[in-house]
């Protein structure tokens, strides 16, 4: 593990009119690291990743990639710098084939001048290869994404991001809508991608999913970083408490007889 973070966000603040969505959030991710970003609904996770992905521009604070200060004007900019985001529900278009989804926006072409046509042969071949690498054997790459399970869709999106040169991969609650087995598949995919040296920012509010693959954990609450911990420094219960803001939840989970 190298010491220079792939991406480093320092004291990010973001205001929407009178609303302070982020009030000083700092997160960094090293190559091959999975950094889990935890927080309850409304903690500012979405705003934060959208800032990282170039959708929002921070009101103040600094973004550095490989130690260099950068500014993302739009998502395309961020993508060009190697920051790719996989959104929970917006990753794929169900009516389109796996191949067409995989290459969407970056379709391979052959030919010259005005006669440049899709290179479907190459597109299909690479899609099948990349999916196999992620542990999914597609029978054929022209089947619609709608026929895939939720976990497989996330995997296609992750494979796509990695293939197109993502160095930092932001995963927005990739497991929140999935069943147990599919969740396990997606977590395995995350592990596989991490081993290739890609830095992963894994957003979730499920502590167990985070514990399964995370190297470091940062908890957001009310637009602020509550703190960052390494693997093994915190117990799941402690993380859970930090996310929910402590006392009340402890009381609640006590009355329910266990960790939520």
């Amino acid at each position, binding site marked *: 593990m190298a010491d220079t973070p792939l991406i480093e966000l320092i004291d990010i603040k973001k205001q929407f009119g009178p609303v302070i969505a982020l009030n000083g959030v700092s997160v960094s991710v090293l190559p091959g690291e999975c950094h889990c970003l935890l927080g309850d609904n409304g903690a500012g996770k979405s705003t934060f990743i959208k800032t990282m992905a170039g959708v929002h521009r921070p009101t103040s604070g600094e973004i550095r990639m490989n130690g260099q200060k950068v500014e993302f004007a739009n998502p395309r900019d961020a993508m060009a710098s190697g920051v790719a985001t996989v959104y929970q529900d917006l990753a794929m*278009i169900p009516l389109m084939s796996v191949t067409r989804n995989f290459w969407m926006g970056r379709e391979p072409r052959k030919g010259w001048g005005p006669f440049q046509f899709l290179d479907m042969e190459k597109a299909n071949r690479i899609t099948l290869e990349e999916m196999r690498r992620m542990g999914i054997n597609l029978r054929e790459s022209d*089947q619609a994404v709608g026929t895939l399970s939720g976990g497989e869709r996330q995997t296609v999106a992750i494979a796509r991001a990695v293939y197109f040169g993502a160095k930092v991969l932001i995963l927005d609650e990739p497991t929140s809508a999935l069943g147990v087995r599919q969740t396990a598949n997606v977590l395995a995919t995350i592990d596989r991608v991490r081993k290739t040296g890609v830095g992963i920012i894994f957003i979730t509010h499920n502590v167990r999913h985070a514990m399964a693959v995370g190297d470091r954990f940062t908890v957001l609450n009310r637009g602020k970083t509550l703190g960052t911990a390494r693997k093994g420094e915190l117990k799941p219960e402690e993380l859970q408490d930090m996310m929910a803001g402590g006392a009340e939840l402890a009381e609640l989970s006590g009355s329910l007889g266990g960790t939520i």
Partner: protein
Amino acid sequence: MVEQPSGAVAADERIQRQSALRRAFVRPELGAMTGTVLVFIYFAIVAGGTGMFAADGVMNWGVVSAQFVIIAVGACLLMIAGEFDLSVGSMIGFAGIVIALLSVHLGWPMWASIIAAFIVAMLIGMANGYLVIKTGLPSFIVTLASLYILRGLTIYFAIATTRQTIIGGVREAAAGDWLAQLFGGKIFGFFFTWLADMGWIATFQAGNKAGQPVVDGIPMLMVWAVALVIFAHILLTRTRFGNWIYAAGGDARAARYVGVPVDRVKIAMFVFSAFCATVFATCQVMEFGSAAADRGLLKEFEAIIAVVIGGALLTGGYGSVIGAALGALIFGVVQQGLFFAGVESSLFRVFLGVILLLAVILNTYIRRLITGER
């Protein structure tokens, strides 16, 4: 987590579901293909002896179908991109009047009038698209407004300048014009003369055309229809831009997130829809030798119906140009076929309503198959 042999997990999960039949079924064109075959079988039986399938009969429904095809192609790409254009019919009337006014009333050369009509119509198409994108309103409403605005302006301009809603004299103005030939001419005349000489197609028996074949060439309208279908089909299925059309209609936000210029794609499709309407208008004006302010009435709906029969989803993201063309063919064959078969022509509308309903139900079902919705 138990480690499973790689590959085994994913492979068996998926194979079970799709039977060969179901896979054949899940094609946008399938309904239209079946419909086309059924329609031809039906009319071969009820109207086989009426001359519907003789050369002039074929030309009769062929021309009508080609008209539907031209506007259906534009509507098809636009619908796949997730939008509607209800101003197509008004655009047809408008473009026709622009050509006639410029050429007959103002004395412009015909080629310049035609080019001007294309430019104006496509600018209006662009304005439609721009408004839809910028306001975020449904294209249904925005283009409904253009439907009324354009129709009103068409009648107003026609009356304000010539005091009538029909402007004649276009044929005379177009005589010898190179560009007019591209819309009003006919090709392969020699071929039909040859066919008649060989006795394979009928000739006129009396009148000043006696001895000439009943069909004297392929009208440019049909050439345009075929060319537009080929162009749009290749654009949609074989190019990068085609993938963006699907993506823009399938899920505009998801497409934007991966860098597809959704706004540009949608506006371009509005422009293309206007282009197709103007091709239709120009061919019609050249054929009739006149322009009328009420031309193109209801064409927007007929185009949309043809596209839906062709298997496209009203919600966008799915459909086929070939399907839309077949939908238009069904449209044309039935409309003219009922006439050949001697059926009361008002029943055509009944047929249309019924087939539209069936097509939408079938499409919704196919959509469920693809997306796995229940």
